[in-house]
């Protein structure tokens, strides 16, 4: 089950480099429990749709929610499939799978806020050691703030996974003791999936589940957060 503490120590993958975003998407997809209702955020998390668990007969084993009013969202539409009345939250034309359902916005967000949605995967500027999330606004004076459904998802989904690079382009860690960017939600993140490591956020602290292209010791050196094994 997502969010539960793992007892084994971190698996160090040092015979390879950090994960590419596609590899990271595959790792996350693998960890999403079959049977879940899942919302994939705009941007990188959308890639996870290509790596979702499947039943034995090959049908997708999770049901995708898109906040603009649909369960059972299928892959991106191409060619004649494109229908301007059928888009995902990123306004990209998509398709519907058998068993799909449409609903209005208040119902769509009741699915989050009411605790019905099992997992959402969001991008982030920063995640704090206690699970605080910052992903909607840089806080810069010339930045136009745009929150969309991020705060509702962060607060409402049973499990909030973050998908991000571990370091900024300047090399600063994005897993931090306390967020400096404006917050999206308090203590809401349960898992942090990054190119260099996967972190599980538990009441007793941040556990490292796996590293990629870096040792646990090196990771502890570069991230200014106490990391449990």
């Amino acid at each position, binding site marked *: 089950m997502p969010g539960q503490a793992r007892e084994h120590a971190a698996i160090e993958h040092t015979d390879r480099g950090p994960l590419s975003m596609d590899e990271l998407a595959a790792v996350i997809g693998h960890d999403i429990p079959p049977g879940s209702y899942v919302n994939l955020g705009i941007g990188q998390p959308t890639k996870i749709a290509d790596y979702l668990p499947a039943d034995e007969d090959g049908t997708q084993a999770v049901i995708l929610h898109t906040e603009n009013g649909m369960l059972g969202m299928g892959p991106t539409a191409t060619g004649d499939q494109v229908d301007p009345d059928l888009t995902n939250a990123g306004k990209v034309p998509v398709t519907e799978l058998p068993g799909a359902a449409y609903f209005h916005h*208040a119902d769509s967000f009741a699915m989050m806020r009411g605790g019905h949605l099992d997992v959402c995967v969001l991008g982030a500027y920063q995640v704090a050691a206690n699970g605080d999330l910052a992903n909607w606004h840089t806080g810069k004076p010339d930045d136009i703030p745009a929150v969309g459904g991020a705060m509702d998802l962060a607060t409402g989904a049973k499990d909030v996974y973050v998908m991000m690079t571990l370091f900024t382009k300047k090399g600063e860690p994005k897993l931090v003791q306390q967020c400096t960017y404006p917050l999206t939600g308090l203590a809401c993140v349960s898992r942090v999936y990054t190119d260099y490591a996967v972190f599980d956020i538990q009441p007793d602290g941040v556990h490292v589940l796996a590293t990629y292209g870096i040792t646990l010791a090196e990771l502890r050196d570069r991230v200014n957060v106490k990391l449990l094994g």
Partner: protein
Amino acid sequence: MFQTTDEAVAGIEDGSTVLVGGFGLAGMPFDLIDALIRQGARDLTIVSNNAGNGDVGLAALLKAGQVRKVMCSFPRQADSWVFDGLYRAGKIELEVVPQGNLAERMRAAGAGIGAFFCPTAVGTPLAEGKETREIDGRAYVLEYPIKGDYALIAAHRADTLGNLVYRKTARNFGPVMATAATTTIVQVSEVVPVGALDPEAVVTPSIFVDRIVKVEARSYTVRGAR
């Protein structure tokens, strides 16, 4: 039933709060907005998920200088240049509302709810200055309804009474906005006689609908994809 969109939007006063349906371009009531531009009401407060895409629909209304304030969840997009320019020039006011709160605040207005406690945005800048309360160990923010003087929405099909069905994700805010405005104005692609809609499939019952106008499908809405 109205014959033209110009008749359908007649009487919208300066300073009105207008709820505008759509998520991006899906469900955007283009023809009603174009009529509102011709009608010329100014100093409007617009409540919508976005603040316009490209140069059409809501973006065109903004460009016409008729909007004083936008309440929305997601103004900044790759194609929101009209809003971006007005905002950076200080010519338009912005209130950012989390998308679920935007929907629920309108739902509350339509359902006669005075206010509600919501967990979204607790501890964030969007909850600053708002009353909070702990209920059963969880923190909530007090949110007030958003009521519209008018709602402009697009639906797929109406009967002549005003019962509505929508199409796919173009439904989005339509059913909620229809309940939350004093006067709800709907553009539809098709009008059918009373009795032709399956009562089990009606999404917006006619009691929430005041004016209906049939419009022709537009090339860019059927070609899609942008």
